[in-house]
């Protein structure tokens, strides 16, 4: 009997010990889990911050690109406006000299009048000569002033300068429109304006070799979004298209309204995208460029921004013929109202 009892106690003790052990194990597992969770959270934070950093770097890279592009566009009008303003000053100085000569000639003409009253025969002859000479000089000085091209030249240079300044102002306006430094956040936006400002920023990459065809629908519906981000999307797609065309080519930019909103298409006549590359183009860090030349983030950022605007992207490509990226965004009118 006692043997049975002892055995029973032993079994119970064993069960208790096992239970206790499992409890400890579970606790250990739980704390390990907690630690792992914490670790994962730290890693996630690190990842997020490094992603933010990479996006920031990409933004800086496109800022550099933007500055280079804008610098080029600004330097031409700056070049002639700056020169003209200086030269007009010189022209006016030259003109002032002509007027001064004219003045001297007028003075000369007035002298004989004073002399005439106290004149004898001999000095009268002299006087006639003087009058003839001074009339000739007055005539020449007047003709020089009248015929002088200086004022017309100055006027032309000023007209050019006025044009140049208008051009500079619209470039700066465009730049402000592109970066939207004044208004960050959601806003109603005209995609045509965005496309234009992105084309201006990319102008230095396109100008020599790529013909841009604009098929922009007037009165295209407005979209609600972050203009600075959507402009970034347009710029990235334009830049990609330019890089896909090694030599000369045509970039066709189309905006049109669709059933659900607005479509913005960028079609190039470049190298196209091979089948094995196509599924990966929106993957972060995927790039076909040489190391150091691309971050592999351009299209992934494009994708992310378009998705966050409730839109989507369609790609059509034919190797050696070209690619077309179409961004589809819901328009303000097509969006279901929420009140």
């Amino acid at each position, binding site marked *: 009997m006692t043997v049975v009892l002892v055995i029973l106690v032993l079994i119970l003790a064993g069960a208790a010990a096992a239970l206790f052990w499992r409890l400890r194990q579970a606790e250990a597992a739980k704390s390990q889990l907690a630690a792992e969770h914490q670790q994962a959270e730290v890693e996630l934070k690190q990842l997020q911050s490094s992603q933010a950093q990479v996006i920031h770097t990409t933004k800086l890279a496109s800022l550099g690109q933007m500055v280079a592009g804008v610098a080029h566009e600004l330097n031409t009008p700056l070049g002639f406006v700056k020169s003209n303003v200086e030269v007009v000053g010189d022209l006016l100085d030259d003109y002032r000299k002509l007027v001064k000569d004219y003045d001297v000639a007028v003075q000369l003409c007035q002298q004989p009048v004073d002399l005439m009253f106290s004149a004898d025969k001999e000095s009268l002859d002299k006087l006639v000569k003087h009058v003839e000479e001074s009339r000739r000089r007055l005539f020449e000085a007047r003709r020089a002033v009248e015929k002088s091209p200086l004022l017309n030249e100055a006027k032309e*240079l000023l007209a050019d300068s006025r044009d140049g300044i208008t051009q500079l102002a619209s470039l700066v306006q465009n730049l402000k429109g592109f970066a939207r430094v004044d208004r960050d956040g959601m806003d109603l936006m005209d995609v045509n304006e965005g496309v234009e400002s992105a084309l201006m920023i990319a102008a230095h990459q396109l100008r020599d070799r790529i013909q841009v065809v604009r098929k922009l629908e007037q009165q295209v519906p407005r979209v609600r979004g972050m203009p600075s981000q959507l402009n970034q999307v347009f710029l990235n797609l334009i830049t990609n298209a330019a890089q896909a065309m090694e030599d000369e080519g045509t970039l066709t930019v189309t905006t049109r309204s669709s059933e659900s909103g607005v479509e913005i298409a960028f079609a190039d006549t470049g190298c196209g995208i091979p089948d094995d590359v196509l599924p990966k183009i929106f993957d972060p860090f995927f790039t076909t460029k040489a190391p150091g030349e691309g971050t592999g983030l351009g299209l992934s950022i494009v994708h992310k921004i378009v998705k966050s605007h409730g839109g989507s992207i369609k790609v059509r490509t034919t190797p050696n013929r070209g690619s077309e990226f179409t961004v589809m965004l819901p328009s303000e009118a097509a969006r279901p109202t929420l009140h």
Partner: protein
Amino acid sequence: MLGQDFEMPAADPNRGPLRVLFIDDEARILRALKALFRDLEVYFTTEPREAPALALKHNVDVVVCDQRMPEMLGVDVLREIREQHPRAMRILLTGYSDLKAVLGSVNEGEVYRFVNKPWINADLRALVLEAGEIARESPAIGDQLSPNEQNTARSQVGVLVIEDDTTVQQRLREILQPHYQVRFASTAERALQVLEQHETGVVISETATNHGADLTLMLKALKQYHPHIATVVITERANAQTVIELINEGQVYRMLIKPVRMGSCRLSVDSALGRYWKLKQQPKAVRRYGVTPSEETVRAQTKLPNSLLSRIRSLPARLFGVGGVRI
């Protein structure tokens, strides 16, 4: 047309106001330049394709050309003008300088100076007047030698390589040793020893040593005092601004990007040697390759080791008629 030889036109080309051709696709730039140079005989066109014929027809002394034009790049226009009308001095005027354009302007256009838009009126005027005076006083020379000349040049004139990377040194040795008298230096100090002891017509150099020592100051100083020596720069990573400075203040003859290719390297050294040899025979042409250091460069040069600058200055002049020193 009878007088095919444009070097000897009927009217004396050295009389009357300077003749300058301006090429830019932006008409307003041309009008601004026309007004700025209203005291000279100016020609201008927005059609780069017409430029070489115009330069030839009017026997212009100076050509000022924009880089970025829709039909044709400025570098290509200047290359054609160099071939068809070599006596004109060439200036590139540009709003944005990408590396490709700058390299092209050295290697193909052989430009005298590179000017950024917006320009400074007084500086541009002084530059064009100087270039015009040089075009009139200093004959244009080629760089192609006859096989005989080439043999003599190769046996008499040394090529100096300034490079401290042993792999590149080895590569250049393979390419150059069989054809030229090549000497190697891995420091500026050693390079000067070579220049002092041997007649050197071509200097091949990096822009900086592996240890980060800047070699461009020395190259500029060398050109400043010995403009007849042709410099070929071979560099790993060139930035457009450095190259522009090397053109304007160093009159670099050719600029190659690493890795060094046999073909382009041989071609460059051959024509650099040709240039030196032709200059030796025609010392008056040397003004075409002269430089004026910027104030910044002069300031930086004062920080060079004392002996270096004075040694560069007093390098023996090996050319007849060229004092070696032109300050």
